[in-house]
């Protein structure tokens, strides 16, 4: 199966193929971050989320964030998949997977990439509250 490492898609995210993709025989550590839709935000109950992206830009941005991480830590392969569309509580919104020879670099790089996604990736989240209102998280 051909794996695309950087993807924005409405399809559910399957972690196993991405973890298999990043694993190469020289890398002993794989760190996976799974961002999951929570049932609340700041004491307000969530019904579901809608994610939206500027996909022509978001995919290259994800790729460039992996390169930023690679300049900072000795890491191997990286994969980032982000879902868009309506997501229910408990569904995976984003998966960041980083392989490295040693674990500290893998942890640091995965957290860095996720922090940077939150800062600059053109992907937005609309909270649909349990009370029927909706608001963009800005």
């Amino acid at each position, binding site marked *: 199966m051909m794996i695309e490492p950087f993807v924005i898609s409405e399809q559910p995210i399957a972690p196993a193929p991405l973890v298999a993709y990043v694993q190469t025989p020289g890398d002993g550590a794989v760190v996976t971050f799974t961002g999951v839709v929570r049932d609340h935000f700041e004491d307000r109950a969530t019904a579901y989320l809608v994610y939206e992206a500027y996909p022509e830009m978001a995919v290259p941005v994800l790729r460039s964030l992996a390169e930023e991480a690679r300049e900072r830590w000795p890491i191997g392969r990286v994969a980032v998949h982000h879902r868009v569309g309506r997501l229910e509580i408990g569904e995976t919104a984003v998966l960041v997977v980083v392989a490295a020879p040693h674990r500290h670099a893998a942890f640091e790089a995965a957290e860095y990439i996720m922090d940077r996604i939150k800062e600059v990736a*053109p992907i937005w989240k609309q909270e649909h509250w349990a009370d029927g209102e909706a608001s963009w998280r800005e």
Partner: protein
Amino acid sequence: MNIKVRFFAGHRDIVGAAEQSFEVDTGATVGTLWEVLVVRYPRLAGYSGRLLYAVNQEFSALQTPLAEGDEVAFIPPVSGGSL
């Protein structure tokens, strides 16, 4: 010059469209285009200073000059809080 502008998330709700074309003068920049938009859609004003800018899918600055046919995006805050 004809410039295509993409709107996302809260911006799209305010503008009521995902995409619009604007005519701007030669020498216009990302910043002058944003001022045009704020005049037309005053509710965008609250986003001034809290945006990222992209020209042809590359991060840009308020000073970036525009060229005929560019695609501009004003990127509302993406800090999705803390997953």
